[in-house]
């Protein structure tokens, strides 16, 4: 919560966006949790003697662009988005609304997925210590071939492609472009110390504490 409070400190009007699917089922980011988190933010802010306006929204599935696109009007109104979706939902939100900073409100720890049919692209490594707030909503841990926290490496090809696979985008070029759009390039200059990849002990197991 402290992390969320600090991330929101700069903003006066934010959208708290939940997701109606997986995170609702695991009591982390559904309608109820959106209401509670928004209320906590308002209470915390008023205790500090200032104010924060929160819009609240739930989309059926925050990992689907069509569904997230419905939030356009609300996102236009706010300065930043606080997403209670999994890392995948946060990234879809960040991709659709590139000019707004999107902050993760949950630390996605592991993702269960349907086993067959179709093709999915990995967006979130479920590392348990979300990094998306510093990278403009693009996860370098899985989208960079080397999983670099301080990129790009020296191997970026012309056109922003990866040296390991020319068909793939260099995640750090994407991060740079996204942050540039948001005027937050100072984040690129920061040095991030190695991450604790043991935040989640595998296999993941979460015991809900909500009453």
């Amino acid at each position, binding site marked *: *919560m402290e992390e969320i*409070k600090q991330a929101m400190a700069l903003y006066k009007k934010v959208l708290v966006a939940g997701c109606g699917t997986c995170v609702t089922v695991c009591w982390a980011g559904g309608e*109820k949790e959106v*209401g*509670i988190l928004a*209320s*906590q933010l*308002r*209470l*915390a802010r*008023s*205790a500090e003697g200032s104010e924060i306006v929160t819009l609240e929204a739930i989309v059926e599935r925050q990992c689907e662009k069509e569904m997230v696109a419905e939030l356009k009007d609300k996102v236009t109104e706010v300065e930043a988005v606080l997403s209670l979706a999994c890392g995948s939902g946060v990234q879809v939100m960040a991709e659709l609304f590139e000019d707004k900073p999107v902050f993760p409100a949950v630390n996605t720890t592991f993702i269960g997925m349907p086993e067959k049919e179709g093709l999915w692209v990995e967006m979130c490594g479920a590392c348990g210590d979300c990094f998306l707030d510093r990278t403009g909503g693009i996860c370098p841990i899985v989208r960079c071939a080397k999983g670099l926290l301080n990129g790009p490496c020296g191997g970026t090809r012309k056109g922003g492609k990866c040296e390991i696979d020319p068909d793939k985008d260099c995640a750090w070029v994407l991060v740079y472009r996204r942050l540039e759009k948001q005027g937050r390039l100072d984040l690129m200059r920061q040095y991030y110390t190695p991450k604790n990849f043991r935040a989640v002990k595998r296999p993941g197991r979460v015991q809900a*504490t*909500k*009453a």
Partner: protein
Amino acid sequence: MNGRIIAFCCEHSAYPAADLAGKLGLHYPETLRIIRVPCAGRVDVIHMLRALEKGASAVLVLGCEDGACHHITGNIRARERVKHCDMLLREIGIDGRPVVMFNLSPNAPHKFVKAANEITKIIKESREAR
């Protein structure tokens, strides 16, 4: 803050108790505002938070005695939710605005008054401590 205490009263216990307190002419703090609910188990965390957001100094959740809940486990759920709400408040560093649960039976007007006085005392103490 408007100094009010919001009391969510179960209509099977605390509400009749409050009614009886009125009939007997018992005094309780004038800052108390009663909200009648079908069961203490109906009161959700968000209701308690909203009450505080709107300026209440404290929230009381009053339900049936253990084992006597009209809806079997409503009072147990309510207690858990009060505990959860308390944890959420501590998380954002808000203290001195208590959320407390009391159990009482419909024929216990004195206990209703005692609960109201007790929470008033808690608020007063925490204000003085600051």
